[in-house]
């Protein structure tokens, strides 16, 4: 599988990563090489093999729907880049 700079730009947009135009060809080369490595998987027929998502094939453990944590908004917002009046600040989304 070979990817070009335009495809890298599209993937970067999906990943919300600003990639400089001059860096796109190098990423395209790296990604193509990684996908070639990954393509070795196709040498094996996996028809009927159950996909393995968890090493112990364990189900997620449910818990009771109860409040277990105290509110620590101020503590957690102390490390936020921009907050005001308990709110996280971002550029204006709606005019």
């Amino acid at each position, binding site marked *: 599988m070979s*990817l070009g700079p335009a495809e*890298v730009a599209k*993937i*970067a*947009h*999906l*990943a*919300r*990563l*600003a*990639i*400089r135009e001059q860096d796109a060809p190098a*990423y395209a080369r*790296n*990604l193509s*090489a*990684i*996908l070639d*490595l*990954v*393509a*070795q*998987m*196709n*040498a*094996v027929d*996996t028809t009927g*093999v*159950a*996909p*393995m*998502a*968890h*090493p*112990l094939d*364990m189900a*997620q*453990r449910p*818990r009771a729907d109860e409040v277990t944590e105290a509110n*620590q908004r101020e*503590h*957690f917002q*102390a*490390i*936020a*880049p*921009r907050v005001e009046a308990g709110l*996280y600040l*971002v*550029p*204006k*989304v709606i005019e």
Partner: protein
Amino acid sequence: MNLPSPTAMHDQTIARLGAGLAAGEFSSEELTRVFLARIEQFNPGLNAFITVTAESALAQARAADERRRRGEAGPLTGVPIAHKDIFCTDGVRTSCGSRMLDRFIAPYNATVVENLAAAGVVMLGKTNMDEFAMGSSNETSFYGPVRNPWDLDAVPGGSSGGSAAAVAARLTPGATGTDTGGSIRQPAALCGITGIKPTYGRVSRWGMIAYASSLDQGGPMARTAEDCALLLGAMAGFDRRDSTCVDRPVPDYVALLDRPLHGLKIGLPREYFGEGLDGEVARVVEAAITEYRKLGAEMVEISLPNSQLAIPAYYVIAPAECSSNLARFDGVRYGHRCENPKDLLDLYTRSRAEGFGAEVTRRILVGTFVLSAGYYDAYYLKAQQIRRLISDDFRRAFDQVDVIAGPTSPTVAFNLGEKVDDPITMYLSDIYTIAVNLAGLPGLSLPVGFVGQRPVGLQLIGNYFAEDQLLNVAHRYQQVTDWHQRSPVAFA
């Protein structure tokens, strides 16, 4: 090769230091000052620590001494250790080796940090690592590479390279690490120390910054299997805050170290001794196997036929999970934020581009691609099927043998800069360790010799929750050999 001076405190194992503390030979404060002084002296040349917490270390040491006076000390009380900078430490910068978290002061402790603190350990500081644990040489760190204490031109391995180098150089008697594809075992091998990646779910991942959540597992790194047993016993255990943590009693690993190895069946996978394995590393590993024969173990040739598929499957699954996990870094709630974003999209894309280095960017891109519409079945689903085949290989092997042994890494430590521009070559250095993560099995690396002045590690792979057996098998070897006692001359 110099043998360590028998009296120097920094040259003692955790077990010995614990005994010295218990006997009142020295206080935790004295011991902590010894290691802080060594860090001050040697860290500038090694770059093994990102953050040194001298003041709080001394406070913790005094608290440990006080606890001992009250008669409430355990075997680890007052023993200094270091944490890989992937574990959240309340009030202390937790950078994960990334510019993204350069100014991130964690608001809580990881469970591993809490558990070890409850045992009374003293934290010396936070160790350097590949950015977000993505790397095999410690060269992707925002804080610069770590050097290998055995040869300053060589990498220490990665991603837990700072922890491995700090233990090898005797800047700390033990450290925590994490292992997603070999990140405890490979640096342990390259730095000549002992490290164990437990069974997936044995150690809580809560507060351990996520890379690939179905593979990540924390574990101890130290000089000896006995020290790893002490540390793992304190680290492991059920944690309701990690939904994949296993609710199962933690054995007394130290009490189980001495079992004889007579009749133990050790499997040697032929795929781990073939093409790609350095000839001199192979000779050192074979000498270790001969030693195990003398200890009464029986060697059985086995096959793990899908071994060559581990790296391809890993480089789908790990990037896919990483692209999802690292989506949380958005420049809004914590972490790096770009200057003067013109709109929300600009805030996201620029904060992330400025915060992440090249290898993290590559893996996020690969992960985003393999999960994107139209590609999921061909990549992610296929990789999960391969994962099943690899896991089945191990299940069949453990029907025949008790543990599996082979090289941890196909070569000794390579030179700084040698592979950094070639991701694929770098990825291949984890060829013997990655399958263990895919299967979720425990794996241990122990030092078994040298090629030139660079150490060689033997990897032991066990069945699920057989950490006690791996530590036992490593410990018996360390009772009859002294590779684990060797220390790099420049750091004597």
